[in-house]
């Protein structure tokens, strides 16, 4: 049986077997009393040292090996590597959590992130491979000519990749801080070390073979807990087939819980709290002074009577924690008000599409759902770190096949994610709601400690109501094994999988950023005569700088993983998609057109994100520039406007400028060639 396999396939088979026996051994050791903390360490050390070993074994200083793995990666393995490259911390950690929280609405991510590969397969991959250089800016530079377009492309690639890589490193921090109890900021830098070993030593070649190894770990880690859950709940270990039944049970539980009088009462209490905050915000700054006076009289009263020291200290801390000035009070109270408003809303049913109380609200949901799908598909087809993966196959045909394998390997995870969410919801609704708060399982406290789970007994009845529990979407996947009471080894496995997902994507992104800088900017524009050795030195030192910069930003916890990622997609889509597609399919597209279109696309997209999402930038000292969204479209879908504007600008400007005679011959070489072309 083994004889028919290639050497590569055999290697990865042994590797998978080795990993499975490692899990088995840990499971046995846990039975014999190995403490959970050690299991966490064992997984962390084992997986990161595997990646490092592969990275060292594949080290290279050949330019073509460094940038495109020598174009020798077979379609099947390239598909697997693309899968790992593609599925980031957002897919692994964030997706099921978002599906858990928003039900059907979260499926926009599932459709968008898979549908984009159809665009990659049909519109881009074969043509990029036939062109066969190193980077996406290379392609745009060759098609349209000139350094200006190359520079714009590099800037866009770096911007989108950087936002995206920050989200990955943030994911690494979440995982390490929970499972091996490192401080969040330290966890970020430990993960960074793992990333650097691969990309630093061996560039694309090392990253490719590590990504295949990481894919295997991440898919095993993702499917295992759901399969166990599925077996426990339904007796069938294939969750994708049976979660329909569980979904029906969830709907029944939802119907009962959402309408129960206590839940309604709790939601009413949150509404009152929101109103209270709204009032306080209206009456600023008097309300702040009033609160301050009230607290200080209370403290004085307590001090005068012989109250317990503990109560006084608690009040004094409250006093110290009061907002310092009206501006700070407004920000803080607005946040408190919004979170109270969220909790006061009637929760939505999991399977309901475009929920809303009026037809108008439903239509807003529907439009946003489709807009998000649009941005994610187009972003998928425009992210440079994925597109460069199709440079690494030996032939055009293999590039096409490789897209098929990529999507297949990605589907395995994306088809499981909705099942994950439904099973997790079933567990929470049936085992966590309506139990006494003193009897809550240990995982709640553990996750509350790093601020991703919060519980508040607002009606003081000592029992947990659904509305009193708030889960961060990033928790669901990592905590599900604990929620369902599985052995700790499963939690460790999931953490290792999440780490693999975050590291593999971060590797691909860092490599894209640094090859843009060293190849496109340094070599192509500034020093075409630079020696190959020196180009690699530049590339590696850039890698170090960018990685440390990204980790520093991630340590500030700038937002949830998923919203950061969506912005990156909108930006990448607006910048690249129109220029790439028109560049391949429309001969008349000119340099001036492409340049104008890319600039307009990026700027519009960023402008929209900033004005809709933020109202002030304290560092620059400007504020009050927030605006109402256009057509109710959220900032995560800013690419809708960016891409549309990009297409229009390219078409209009191209039609009024003179056609470049070299375009036709360039297009001939990428559309059709039978071996005797350049």
């Amino acid at each position, binding site marked *: 049986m083994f004889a028919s396999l290639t050497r590569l396939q055999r290697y990865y088979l042994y590797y998978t077997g080795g990993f499975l026996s490692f899990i088995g051994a840990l499971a046995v050791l846990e039975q014999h009393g190995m403490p959970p903390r050690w299991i966490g360490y064992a997984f962390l050390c084992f997986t990161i040292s595997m990646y490092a070993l592969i990275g060292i074994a594949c080290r290279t200083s050949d330019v073509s090996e460094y940038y495109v793995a020598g174009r020798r990666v077979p379609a099947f393995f390239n598909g697997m590597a693309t899968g790992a490259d593609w599925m980031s911390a957002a897919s692994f950690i964030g997706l099921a959590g978002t599906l858990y929280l928003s039900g*059907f609405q979260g*499926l926009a991510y*599932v*459709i968008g992130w*898979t*549908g984009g*590969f*159809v*665009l990659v*397969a*049909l*519109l881009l991959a*074969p043509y990029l491979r*036939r062109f066969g250089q190193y980077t996406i800016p290379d392609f745009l530079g060759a098609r349209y000519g000139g350094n200006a377009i190359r520079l714009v492309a590099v800037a866009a690639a770096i911007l989108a990749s950087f936002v995206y890589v920050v989200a990955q490193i943030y994911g690494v921090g979440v995982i390490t801080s929970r499972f091996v109890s490192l401080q969040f900021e330290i966890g970020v830098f430990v993960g960074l070390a793992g990333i650097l070993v691969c990309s630093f030593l061996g560039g694309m070649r090392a990253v490719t073979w590590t990504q295949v190894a990481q894919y295997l770990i991440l898919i095993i880690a993702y499917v295992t807990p759901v399969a166990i859950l599925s077996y426990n709940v339904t007796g069938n270990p294939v969750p*994708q087939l049976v*979660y*329909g*039944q*569980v*979904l*029906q049970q969830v709907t029944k539980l939802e119907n009962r819980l959402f309408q129960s009088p206590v839940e309604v009462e709790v939601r009413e209490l949150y509404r009152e709290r929101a109103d209270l905050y709204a009032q306080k915000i209206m009456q600023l700054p008097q309300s702040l002074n009033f609160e301050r006076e009230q607290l200080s009289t209370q403290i004085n009263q307590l001090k005068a009577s012989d109250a317990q020291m503990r109560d006084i200290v608690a009040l004094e801390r409250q006093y110290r924690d009061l907002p310092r000035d009206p501006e700070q009070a407004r920000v803080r109270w607005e946040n408190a008000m919004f979170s109270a408003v969220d909790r006061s809303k009637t929760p939505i049913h999991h*399977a*309901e*599409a*475009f929920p809303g109380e009026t037809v108008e609200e*439903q239509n807003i949901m*529907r439009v946003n*759902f*489709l807009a998000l*799908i*649009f941005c994610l*598909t187009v972003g998928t087809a425009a992210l440079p770190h994925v597109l460069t993966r199709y440079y690494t196959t030996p*032939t*055009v*045909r293999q590039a*096409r*096949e490789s*897209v*098929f394998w990529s*999507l*297949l390997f990605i*589907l395995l995870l*994306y*088809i499981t994610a*909705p099942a994950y969410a439904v099973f997790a919801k079933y567990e929470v609704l049936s085992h966590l709601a309506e139990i006494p708060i003193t009897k809550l399982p240990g995982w709640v406290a553990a996750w509350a400690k790093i601020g991703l789970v919060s519980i508040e007994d607002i009606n003081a009845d000592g029992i947990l109501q659904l509305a009193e529990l708030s889960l961060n979407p990033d928790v669901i996947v990592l905590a599900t094994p604990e929620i369902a009471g599985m052995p700790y080894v499963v939690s460790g496995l999931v953490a290792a999988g999440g780490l693999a997902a975050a590291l593999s994507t971060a590797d691909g992104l860092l490599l894209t950023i640094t090859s843009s800088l060293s190849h496109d900017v340094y070599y192509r524009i500034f020093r075409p005569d630079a020696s190959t050795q020196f180009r690699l030195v530049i590339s590696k030192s850039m890698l170090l700088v960018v990685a440390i910069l990204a980790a520093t930003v991630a340590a500030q916890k700038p937002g949830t993983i998923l919203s950061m990622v969506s912005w990156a997609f909108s930006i990448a889509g607006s910048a690249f998609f129109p220029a790439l597609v028109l560049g391949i*399919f429309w001969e008349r597209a000119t340099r001036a057109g492409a340049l104008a279109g890319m600039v307009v696309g990026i700027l519009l997209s960023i402008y929209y994100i900033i004005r809709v999402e933020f109202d002030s930038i304290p560092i620059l000292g400007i504020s009050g520039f927030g605006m109402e969204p256009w057509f109710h479209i959220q900032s995560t879908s800013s690419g809708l406007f960016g891409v549309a504007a990009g297409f229009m600008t390219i078409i209009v400007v191209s039609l009024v400028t003179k056609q470049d005679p070299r375009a036709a011959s360039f297009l*001939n070489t990428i*559309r*059709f*060639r*039978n*071996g005797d072309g350049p």
Partner: protein
Amino acid sequence: MILKAELHWRKTRRLTFTLICLWLFITFGLTWFARGINEVVILGFPLGFYMAAQGALVLYLLIIWWYNRQMKKLDAEFGVENE
């Protein structure tokens, strides 16, 4: 030679266009009506939910598979296999 390339490109373009239209219909057409389609329930799955969670994904895979198959045939027909 030029004519051959022209014909190959025309056929490629037609295949691409057809499949993109199919893709548009699955991604945006069907999804637009998800609320209505959800009334149909199969194996416990409301159909709209099922299409977005699994159905569309499998159809995407089939589109790519079909495209690869047709392109392989086309390339063989025009003798551009030997790259």
